[in-house]
């Protein structure tokens, strides 16, 4: 199938110029390269602008509640290992309300991909600061002095929490993002893909990312080297940073004999 044929035909509600269009296109391009059967892919999301994405793809989708894309995706994948399950959402959805699930999804290493479209802002609720908003960003009425809180470091935290694949893409480079997504799907285990996805409405300054984003395909399997890189990262590096497959969950314990469930109750 051609990339275009992976679009559902439902028209996105995103603002013109929104970075999420690039993610949508990157997914279709990655699917084309993967020769993905549309009925065997499921896109799972939470709430927010980016979480609208599943409906725009010609596959199965689940648009759940705020912050809970990862548990839905993990439950689905454990129950249906035959499916290609991709969880997705925004920075508020994934790192704030869903932060606990992010940590445990990294640890658990279920074989799913998690794409976070990070525009450093809550778009659906009109531009409040998110966990990744710069400390001094003063454009929200809710935090008139800026959030005055150190931004969340998604990739470094993913590494510390045990993610086995960590990468960053950029909405200005949908082809590069398609490559990352392709590799993320192929990776056995939990693959975290952080995407710098510009918000033209609330953070028009993010257009400048185009000049600052730089390719750093570190792609190490050494967590110490990855940690050194990520702690020195300016947040604008793109590429696959870390790839270190480890046993995926659930570990299959082959129970040879079907057990009589009732036996244990007999006296």
């Amino acid at each position, binding site marked *: 199938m051609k*990339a*275009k044929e992976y679009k559902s035909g439902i*028209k*996105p*509600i*995103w*603002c*013109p*110029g*929104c*970075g999420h*269009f*690039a993610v949508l*296109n*990157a997914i279709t*391009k*990655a699917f*084309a*390269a993967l020769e993905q059967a549309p009925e065997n892919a499921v896109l799972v999301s939470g*709430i*927010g602008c980016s979480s609208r994405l599943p409906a725009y793809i010609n596959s199965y989708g689940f648009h759940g509640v705020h912050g809970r894309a990862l548990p839905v995706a993990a439950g689905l994948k454990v129950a249906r290992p035959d499916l290609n399950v991709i969880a997705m959402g925004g920075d508020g959805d994934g790192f704030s309300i869903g932060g606990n699930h992010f940590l445990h999804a990294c640890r658990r290493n279920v074989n799913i991909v998690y794409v976070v479209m990070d525009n450093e802002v809550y*778009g*659906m*609720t*009109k*531009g409040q600061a998110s966990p990744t908003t710069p400390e001094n960003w003063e454009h929200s009425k809710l935090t008139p002095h800026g959030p005055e809180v150190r931004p969340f470091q998604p990739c470094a935290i993913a590494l510390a929490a045990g993610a086995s694949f960590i990468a960053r893409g*950029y*909405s*200005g*480079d*949908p*082809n*590069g993002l*398609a*490559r990352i997504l*392709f590799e993320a799907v192929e990776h056995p285990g939990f693959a975290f893909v952080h995407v710098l996805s*510009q918000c*033209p*409405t*609330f953070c028009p300054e993010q*257009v400048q990312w*185009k000049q600052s984003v730089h390719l750093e395909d570190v792609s190490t399997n050494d967590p110490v080297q990855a940690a050194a890189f990520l702690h020195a990262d300016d947040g604008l590096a793109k590429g696959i940073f870390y790839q270190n497959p480890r046993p995926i969950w659930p570990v299959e314990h082959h129970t040879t004999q079907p057990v009589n469930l009732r036996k244990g109750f007999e006296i």
Partner: protein
Amino acid sequence: MSAAFYDDSSSLYENKGVFLAHSIALEQEAADRLHELAETMAVHNNRVLYQLLMELAAYSETHAANIREFARAEGRSTLAGQGEPLPRFKAWEYFWPDDESPEIFHNGRVHYLMSVEDALLTALEVEQSAESFYRNIAKCTANPEVKTLAEQFAEEEQEHALAISTRLSIVKDAAKNAPSKALDQTDFDPPHMPE
């Protein structure tokens, strides 16, 4: 033939099949992006931009079709079983000078109240970018067939740029003759909260 075979950007300059595959992708990606933007403008009730972008998309679509037709006439086809097929590339395997294909309408320039003038300016830029892509190939290639084609495509891009340029000056003149020269750009519709 998979693209992994062409692991070096010189194939773009030297291999006619690779060159044609890029030319088709360049126009098709431009068309797809313009379609997407047009529909987005429609969703945001910018009818004027919708019309313009659809029109531009149609040109790119036609150009892509023309190159495909040319390739088919050459005995190449993207369809299986028709002569020597064009090589197929994954999205990230193309040898573009930048992150995206040269004629693609930059998302970073887009706004929902984008004016016709802004859109034409961007369209002009991307046509010029496509032209220089072809000019560079024509300059560097040692393959005479590729050189001829690259020059031809560069000419075509130049014509498109000229056409857009003409249209742009008409729009600019119209703006000059408008009663108020400086249009107030205030957006009286601030963003709202859909969820």
